[in-house]
Each structure stands twice: as structure tokens, then as C-alpha cells.
């Protein structure tokens, strides 16, 4: 099986024209990852949680900075320019730091599941184990926010070949785990249709700062270039730009100021439909019958 057969090939040229509400060429969504990394997680045979023996003080405390300090900086900048969050949630954050989840809910943010913890990996999970974390996600987020999650970003981007079938079985509508396109894509599963919504590795703040070692201002410039290009191409057929964030990175004091200017730029540009992930999926499905 050298092709997992996730979706059909569809060239970027000559696609049907997508148009976002208000006749906008580009849908922009912001995806804060609200995460909890355990300080002493159990070992997984396929992936190490921390590079250092537990406690990995720098690794753990860096993530903790996002929850103690960075979240509110990021969230206030988003609220100031009218960007709701679509939250990639380590659902155990509802138990550990409910204040953060409540803050997002009060701002009108949408929550989807990013697993239970970012230190528990799905590789090698049985179907029943994976069903259990999906059910846990639905129940925990519903109890904490009243929302029924509609989407999935695999915990720490760890998958099984069953994941997409199982989240469809549970009634979820979208996956953020596939990086093959700048427009939504229909994903046929054994249990019905999912929509793959463009998330992003390349303009994820994690890639910007940890993979490409960008300065804060270079990262801000990267986001603006990404936006300008996708907005221009969206006149042909509507595009989606996601800005995936982590408060422990973007909420650092040397980064939040330049990032705020990105949000100002996009909000003032006028071409962007600033939306939640579920709204983008709904608008896409309304135009492209399954």
C-alpha cells in the first residue's frame, strides 16, 4: 500500500469557482493550539514525549508559559481585530486549566479535538482505544463548553489508518490533518464524508520559529506574503488560509507585537472572510455537493 488513497487527485488549474460569503476570495481562520503536555507521561513505543529525562524543565515550562502567560496575549490580539479562534484542544486542558477553555468559549471560539494530551500518541491504538479518545473528546468538550466538536487534529499529529473512518463514524465533519491543498477537499471514509480543511505546517508558528528559526518580524512577513498570494489566487477560486498558533511561541513578548500587526493587516485588507473552521466547512459544502 504505497498510496493510502485518502482523496482523488485534482489539479489546481480549472477548478470550479469557490466564493466565500460576502463574495470574498479568501477564508482566513486562526487555530490556536490550546495544549497540555504532561510532565511525566507514560512511554509510547513509537515516539518519545520529551527529549530529556522527565522532568524536561525547559520543554515543560516553555509549554506552561503559553498557559500561564501567552494565551491571553494571543487571544486579546485576535479579539481586537475580530478573529475568532478555532481551537485545537488537548481536551484534558478542560480538566487542568478550565479558565483557559472558558476564556476561549467566552470569546466565541470553536473547539475541536487535538487528542487528550499532546503527550499521548495514537500510533498503534486499537480501534476501540481510538474510539475511546474520540468519545472522551466529545464528552469532555461538551461538558466543559456545551459545544459538540466537529473536527479533529490528531494528537501531536499521530494517526492510525483508522482515524479518519472513526472520526466520521462519531459524526465529526472535518479533519485538519491533511496538507495537500489550499482549498477544502472531500474525504470519503467507510462511514461517510469528511471535509479536509487546510490547516498549515508551513506557516504554523511552530515551523516558523522551531523549524525555520525565523525572527518574529520575519514570521510576520511570512504570514502577510502567504495571505497576499492566497487572496490574489482566490479571485479564481476561493482559497483558505489557516494561521495555526501556540501561545507558548506566539505569546512570547518579542513575538506578539509583530504578530498583532499581521492581524491588523488582514482585518483591514477587506478581502478576507474571517471565520471559524466549521463555518468554512459549511460554506464549502454548500457550494460543492458531495
Amino acid at each position: 500500500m504505497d498510496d493510502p488513497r485518502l482523496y482523488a487527485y485534482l489539479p489546481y488549474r480549472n477548478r470550479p469557482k469557490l466564493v466565500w460569503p460576502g463574495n470574498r476570495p479568501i477564508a482566513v481562520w486562526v487555530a490556536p493550539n490550546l495544549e497540555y503536555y504532561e510532565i511525566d507521561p507514560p512511554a509510547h513505543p513509537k515516539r518519545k514525549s520529551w527529549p530529556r529525562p522527565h522532568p524536561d524543565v525547559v520543554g515543560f515550562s516553555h509549554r506552561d508559559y503559553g498557559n500561564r502567560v501567552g494565551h491571553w496575549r494571543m487571544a486579546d490580539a485576535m479579539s481586537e481585530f475580530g478573529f475568532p479562534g478555532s481551537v485545537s484542544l488537548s481536551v484534558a486542558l478542560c480538566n487542568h486549566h478550565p479558565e483557559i477553555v472558558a476564556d476561549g468559549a467566552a470569546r466565541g471560539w470553536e473547539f475541536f479535538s487535538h487528542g487528550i494530551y499532546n503527550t499521548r500518541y495514537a500510533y498503534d491504538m486499537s480501534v476501540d482505544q481510538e474510539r475511546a479518545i474520540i468519545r472522551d473528546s466529545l464528552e469532555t468538550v461538551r461538558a466543559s463548553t456545551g459545544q459538540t466538536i466537529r473536527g479533529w487534529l490528531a494528537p501531536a499529529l499521530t494517526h492510525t489508518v483508522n482515524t479518519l473512518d472513526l472520526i466520521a463514524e462519531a459524526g465529526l465533519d472535518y479533519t485538519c490533518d491533511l496538507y495537500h491543498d489550499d482549498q477544502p477537499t472531500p474525504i470519503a471514509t467507510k462511514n461517510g464524508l469528511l471535509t479536509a480543511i487546510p490547516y498549515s505546517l508551513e506557516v504554523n508558528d511552530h515551523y516558523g520559529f522551531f523549524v525555520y528559526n525565523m525572527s518574529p518580524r520575519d514570521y510576520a512577513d511570512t504570514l502577510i506574503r502567504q495571505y497576499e498570494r492566497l487572496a490574489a489566487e482566490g479571485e479564481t477560486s476561493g482559497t483558505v488560509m489557516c494561521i495555526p498558533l501556540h501561545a507558548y511561541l506566539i505569546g512570547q513578548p518579542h513575538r506578539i507585537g509583530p504578530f498583532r500587526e499581521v492581524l491588523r493587516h488582514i482585518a483591514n485588507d477587506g478581502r478576507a472572510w474571517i471565520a471559524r473552521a466549521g463555518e468554512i466547512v459549511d460554506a464549502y459544502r454548500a457550494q460543492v455537493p458531495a
Partner: protein
Amino acid sequence: MTLDPGYLDYPRRRPGYDHDLYPWSNIHSRPPVRWPDDRPLAVWPCIVAEFFPITPSDVPFRAPGHMQTAFPDYRHYTARDYGNRVGIYRLLDAFEARGLRASVAMNVAVAERCPALLQAVLQGGHEIVAHSTDMNGAIDGSLPAEAEQAIIADTRARWTALGHTPAGWLSVARSQSFRTADLLLEQGFRWMADWCNDDLPYAFANGIINLPLNHELSDRQIINTTQASADSYCQQIEDAADWLAGEGGRVLPLQLTPYIIALPYRIAAFEALLDRMLARGDCWFAGGGAIIEAAQAVSSARL
């Protein structure tokens, strides 16, 4: 291949952290801290003075900046020693010319090997922070308890023999075990700088204070890891200062590595940064101990 059923057990899934080291706290909901002269931003320069033995230890791990080639690595041994012979005096001069006080996190081996440097630091009115024995004195969770205890006790004893009693501690690479906070307290340390999760000092459950020395803002991270220029480093620090001063009642930690920031082609940019930060009028420069005292004095929050 299936996972152990216990992999989905979460025994520490509960309100607060999954550890008992320190309590949860949202910085934005704490009572405001004000620094002396009602300045909104405390700037904490923390110079590191490190001795890298030419025989590096990999137990428990090799410290960042340590030897890299086969023995004898004269290249890195001497390039690191440059920091203690030359670079650090550029930094001390820069601070003293401007009447500023810093912390110097010093391996006790540096104090023993370079008494002139120790004297210069003390004469400048700077604060000594204990920084383990030398750069082979790393700690982590894999180290046996006795070995860890010995490193901390040895550091304390050797400072005592030199006639000094530093109150603060910085671990090599900020690396600790679950025992470290208790061992530091036992050896008379009142604060540490390793946990980078806040922009203010706060108390651990055992009473020791943690004053975060944010690794993201260190010259090592910005210049060595992300390969930024000195000018970009200065801009990033000023962007951080702008944001933190805007929030008010925050600490901006500057970890300064003499063999990185104090090279001839970088130091002028750093000196100009100091001048611009002084010209702002909203920065209070101080050592870590003074910052903790000020936070305790003006905050009704329990530290």
C-alpha cells in the same frame, strides 16, 4: 501491534497541574507588581560565566556550548575561555559605564580559577548567582540522587570556602530533576531561574522562588540557535521590552553569554541597545535577587 490498555489511563488528570511542584496561576489575574520609581519594566541582565573542562562529561548529558571535536578540542576550549578572559569585561564595562547592576551566574570553578574576574564582578556591585560546579556539573532526572546532591552541596561548599553565599541558582542548561527544588532549598538557596514559564517570580510549593530566565530571549537562543544577527537580537529585545512595559509589572530577562554577545563585532550593538533602553526611562535594571525583593515588597500576592 496494540498499545497497553493502561496507555489511556490518566491518573493525574485533575484541576491544576499533573505535578505538585508549584501551583497554577494566570499572570494576568494577579495583583499588579510595580517596580522602584514606579517603572513598569524590570530588566534583569544575567551574564553567564562558564568553565568548560576540555574533558567533557556526557553524564547525564553534554552541556550546550561544550566541546565538540575529538580530544583535545582546543578550538572550543579556547573560544569558550575567551568569554571569561575578554568578553565578560566588555559586558562589565558596558554595565558599569551606565551605572547598571547585573547578575552573574558563575560556575564556582570560574570563581576559583579566575579570582580577578570574581573581584571585578564584586567591585562592579553585581550579584553572584551559583551556576553549578562547572559545565560538567549538569543535573537531570537520570542522575542518581546522591550524585545530584553532591553537585549542589559541592557548589555551595566551594562558594563558602571563597567567602560567598549566593542565594540564587541557575542549573546547567536549566536542567533539573524532580528533586532539585528541594535539594536547592536544603543547601540554602532561596531562588532559582530554571523554569521558563512566567514573566514574574513565583513561589514553588516548597517555598523556593523561581525567577524565570526565559531561554527564548537568551543570546544563545536568538543568535546561536536561530542564527540572528546582533541587530536582529536587539530589535527582538526591544520588541519584547515594548510589549512587557505596555503590560507593566513584568520582568525582561537578558541571558548574556560573553563568548556570544560580547564579541567585538556584536558588543557595540548591545551597548547601543542598553543606551536606548535607558533612554526609554521606563526600565529598572537590577539583579535577580533585587527583583525578587521588589516583587515581594510591592505585591500583596504570596510569592
